């Protein structure tokens, strides 16, 4: 296992040395993924909450669709987004292909169904508890959804984390729509893919470990916040 530990050492050596290229890649990864997760939450929270709180025709269909979309291979999402953003595609004039924005769009499409489906679960459980009280007070649909989302806020943090995990680890879509262009759209996962294809397995592994460390840190931060805030507050 000497090899493994030296790889690990090299990886953190790179980070600690503040290797400019590596920091740029890490920075772009975080910006792309966090942006995508935030937008996915803005979309997925309300959709999930409506699906969880109300009965309407097509509700079952929506659930099935969301769950199916959760399993959508990122490569397929990448292809679809590529065809949309391509110069020949409907959104071609915006010249978004091979930009970070394209990667955010692709990751948003990947993450939003996950956020929506998990939000539906969380909100459904909470709504079972609140439904009669809401009906008794005569709370309108919009207020209902926002109250449920607010009261589920700590669970939704975990939902967002699940989305973050999926997005930050994703390579298939971002490599198609981002193009893995050095200093422009190269993120952790596409850099790992590139180094692997160059046969630089140690460097690829080192990058993988850095990625893992980032995911651990982000999760730890959010979970710590959640634990302390929720303990103080709202069992």
């Amino acid at each position: 296992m000497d090899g493994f530990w030296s790889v690990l050492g090299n990886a953190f050596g790179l980070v600690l040395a503040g290797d400019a290229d590596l920091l740029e890649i890490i920075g772009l990864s975080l910006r792309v993924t966090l942006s995508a997760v935030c937008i996915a939450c803005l979309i997925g929270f309300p959709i999930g909450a409506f699906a969880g709180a109300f009965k309407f025709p097509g509700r079952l269909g929506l659930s099935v669709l969301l769950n199916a979309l959760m399993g959508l291979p990122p490569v397929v999402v990448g292809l679809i987004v590529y065809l949309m953003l391509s110069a020949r595609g409907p959104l071609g004039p915006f010249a978004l292909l091979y930009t970070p924005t394209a990667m955010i769009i692709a990751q948003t499409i990947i993450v939003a169904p996950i956020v929506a489906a998990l939000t539906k679960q969380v909100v459904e459980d909470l709504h079972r508890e609140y439904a009669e009280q809401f009906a008794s007070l005569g709370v309108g649909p919009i207020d209902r959804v926002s109250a449920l989302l607010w009261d589920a806020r700590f669970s939704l943090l975990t939902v967002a984390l699940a989305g973050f995990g999926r997005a930050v680890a994703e390579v298939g879509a971002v490599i198609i729509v981002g193009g893995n262009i050095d200093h422009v759209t190269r993120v952790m996962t596409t850099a790992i893919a590139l180094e692997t294809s160059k046969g630089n397995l140690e460097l690829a592994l080192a990058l993988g470990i850095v990625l893992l460390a980032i995911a651990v840190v982000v999760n730890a931060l959010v979970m710590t916040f959640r634990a302390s805030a929720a303990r103080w507050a709202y069992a």
Partner: protein
Amino acid sequence: MIKAGVLLVLVLLAAGFPVSADDRFILVQSTTSTQNSGLFDHLLPRFEAKTGIEVRVVAVGTGQAIRNAARGDGDVLLVHAKPAEEAFVADGHGLYRADVMYNDFVIVGPPSDPAKILGMSDAVGALERIAEAKAIFAARGDDSGTNKAELRLWRSTGLDPREVSGTWYRETGSGMGATLNIGVTMGAYVMTDRATWISFGNKQDHLILVEDDPELFNQYGIIPVNPAKHPNVKVELAQEFVDWLLSDEGQRAIGDFKVDGQQLFFPNAKQ
């Protein structure tokens, strides 16, 4: 209020990417072999320093690069599959095609060499022996330039290994690097361009067994994408890049590029 603040931060985050504040960049659709060998890392800073034009390289297989460029998603095409490149120009997607440089393909394999091809300089003969021995051969199978060249050689043997794909002939459907990783692990023969092989970091015991056959010649061509067909392309900037690469200065820069003391690409633009 808190919610509004959070929302604002999120929107700023999302909008935080300037939409090409600087439009002086071009997109080059190229192949993994040029990228993975480090050639672009060697060439582009020189060109950018001289012209101030940023070059963004999307490195995929030749087949995919051509298809991307045919959709207008690129200003310049730099690949290695001459017939396909000529078809690209003939279809009106490219302005013209020019030779840039060449290198060659080699066949690598394990030291045990089960098909006994070591030292051969007859690629077609070597492939025949591999087929005879049913020795494992890892192929790209991804419509890349290397894949096209390999299939052309197989055609000369009169065999179509794709009919037995999955037995000893294994198509990875992946890039050169991924295919080499797989081939090295399986102890398989692999046909690869020399540049990728020399700069490849995971050779283990594999070595070059067959080389120096004129059939293994690997020509790279460059094509500016036709603005008449794809109005979004930056034809002036693209032309500057193409001209520079074909100029004495660009050609010298290609020839100067070495990995481990070995020259990987040989400039051959027609002056």
